[in-house]
């Protein structure tokens, strides 16, 4: 119960104001189609430079939590999911809104998000220290394999083509090696002056997540997007509360699926929401009502995508392996503030980490309160023209990238990576493994070099890197993640070739 000692830190005036601002701002950003939680957190990182590590993390954590929940607003009112995690919410949420039950849909959405989120954070609180102690047993060879596992799992799961997914991960690993070598100071892959200091993680994150979305927004040209919103009629809050609390089955499925998905590196909320929705529908006595405005669909999807948030930080804080693309961006935020995840994190920075985790718990409650309050206004933000949104994100990205080191070189790198990522994504490459490769590259390389030195002093690299139960277990996981992806891709290709599937 160590976390209870650090609750006071959340209520310090500046920290609490940041938590409040991050929650309300995140809800509005989340409700805005085109601004994903990942991009919102990436764009916020430059604003945390001036803050103490705890305060910076509180802001990022609040934004992460509330952007996921805020995405439900546009999903329900406009049938446009604010984020991929809210796709399943739109199915029944918008149907409810069209039946004049928009307020009820918004109430159950935020209540179930809050319940799922709180359970997810409790999992984070109780699982993380246990896993962190376990992680202390890891040597350089194990940490090397863990980093490789992170890249292969995300590369395999996030992309439909496992070759392109793994290739994206390799591109990220290569980007992480640009600049001066840490040990010998040798120049590596410096093709331009802007690359002398290497590729800054924050710069890369802003470019990779913001610029492709700017270009995507421009891709429709000057076409007017007619967005029809629905009127939100008043609904007694207590009725919604009773309905949510009585939906034990949907909440249980949602939080269980969300928590489990969150613990798997790289899977993310989109899958959590859809899987929980699907399972709730299968276990329902009235599956035909799903998609027609059944609140159980909203409850399952929203409890799942917010239950995923806490557990997605468990592998991040203990093993440096993010559980979702947004968690990968959060890892960048931790590193910027000099906080290195790992087994000794809770010994070195207990105040920072516990205050951050506690703030996520309080943030879930604030998210429910403010979510219901700002939902009606947030829907208006969702109708901001794409031309304005694209211009705003571009200028924010340029200023954000420049402010990292006050260098134009960072702005060039940000833009080139962003435009490159847009084209790569159009041909099936994926941003998440690339980012993870970039973040985990230094961890993989440092442990590879350290391991090689130890191996040279012992029985050679083969025995050090490839033998031992933990090494073999991690290698088996790497092979399994690649093998599973290869198998599913092969099966999908075969199914699509069969007559009738074309």
């Amino acid at each position, binding site marked *: 119960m160590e976390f209870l000692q650090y609750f006071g830190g959340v209520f310090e005036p500046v920290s609490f104001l940041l938590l409040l601002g991050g929650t309300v701002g995140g809800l509005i950003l989340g409700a805005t189609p085109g601004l994903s939680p990942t991009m919102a957190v990436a764009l916020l990182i430059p604003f945390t430079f001036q803050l103490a590590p705890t305060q910076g993390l509180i802001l990022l954590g609040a934004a992460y939590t509330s952007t996921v929940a805020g995405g439900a607003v546009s999903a329900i009112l406009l049938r446009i999911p604010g984020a991929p995690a809210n796709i399943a919410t739109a199915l029944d949420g918008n149907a409810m809104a069209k039946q004049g039950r928009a307020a009820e849909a918004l109430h159950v959405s935020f209540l179930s998000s809050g319940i799922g989120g709180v359970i997810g954070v409790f999992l984070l609180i109780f699982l993380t220290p246990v896993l962190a102690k376990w992680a202390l047993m890891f040597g350089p060879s194990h940490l090397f394999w863990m980093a490789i596992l992170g890249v292969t799992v995300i590369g395999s799961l996030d992309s439909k083509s496992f070759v392109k997914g793994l*290739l994206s991960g390799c591109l990220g690993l290569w980007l992480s090696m640009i600049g001066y070598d840490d040990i010998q100071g040798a120049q590596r892959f410096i093709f331009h002056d802007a690359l002398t200091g290497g590729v800054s993680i924050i710069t890369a994150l802003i470019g990779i997540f913001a610029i492709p979305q700017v270009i995507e927004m*421009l891709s429709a040209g000057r076409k007017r997007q007619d967005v029809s919103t629905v009127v939100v009629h008043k609904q007694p809050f207590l009725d919604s509360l009773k309905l949510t609390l009585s939906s034990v089955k949907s909440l249980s499925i949602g939080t269980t699926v969300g928590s489990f998905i969150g613990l798997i590196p790289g899977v993310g909320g989109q899958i959590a929401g859809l899987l929980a929705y699907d399972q709730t529908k299968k276990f329902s006595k009235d599956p035909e009502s799903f998609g027609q405005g059944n609140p159980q669909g909203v409850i399952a999807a929203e409890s799942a995508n917010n239950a995923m948030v806490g557990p997605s930080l468990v592998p991040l804080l203990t093993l440096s392996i993010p559980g979702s693309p947004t968690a990968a961006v959060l890892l960048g935020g931790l590193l910027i503030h000099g906080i290195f995840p790992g087994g000794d994190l809770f010994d070195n920075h207990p105040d920072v980490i516990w205050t951050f985790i506690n703030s996520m718990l309080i943030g879930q409650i604030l998210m429910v309160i403010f979510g219901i309050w700002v939902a009606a206004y947030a829907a208006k933000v969702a109708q901001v023209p*794409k031309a304005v949104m694209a211009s705003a994100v571009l200028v924010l990205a340029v200023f954000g990238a420049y402010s990292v080191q006050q260098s134009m070189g960072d702005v060039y790198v940000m833009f080139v990576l962003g435009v490159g990522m847009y084209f790569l994504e159009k*041909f099936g490459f994926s941003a998440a493994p690339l980012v993870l490769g970039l973040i985990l590259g230094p961890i993989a390389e440092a442990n590879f070099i350290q391991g090689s030195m130890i191996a040279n002093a012992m029985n050679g690299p083969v025995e050090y890197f490839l033998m031992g139960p933990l090494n073999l277990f991690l290698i088996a996981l790497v092979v399994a993640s690649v093998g599973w992806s290869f198998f599913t891709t092969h099966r999908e290709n075969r199914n699509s070739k069969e007559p009738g599937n074309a």
Partner: protein
Amino acid sequence: MNPSATSASDPSTASRVGHLVPASLVLALAAVVAWLSYTQEPASAFLFPRLIGTVMLALALWNFIRAAMGVSKVGQGIAVTTWLNIIPGIALMAVFVFFAAKYFGFYVASTAAFFLLYSGYDPAPHTALSSWVKRVVITAAFMGVIYALFTLLLKVQTPRGMFL
């Protein structure tokens, strides 16, 4: 929507040539990375790059062969209309980032980039005076927020260039 979430899951509508172009570029990059990793000195500083470069080259070769054989399925490619829509925007952004920000000053260039991008892609009629007034007001308001955030709050010193 997050493009990373959609693009990877959409069925391919890109042609074989469409897939070959990025596959060739990635292969060329992987070849350069692998070649530099094995030829640059000191060799010990390139131990890890060699490992990654080799895996990357093998994967890039595999990807190229799949693209050449026409079995590359993932990625919807870019339609001609999309190209026509995005090229002016990308060109404007490139001028802003690589030239205008440094030579005209960060704030002047950013204001111009915001206004031009917004005006260029705004569906509202270009002939109506009220649309132009609205664009000017929104641009000024947004740049005011940016100035308050970055210059007043974060104390970021931006390049001044010719103007501001």
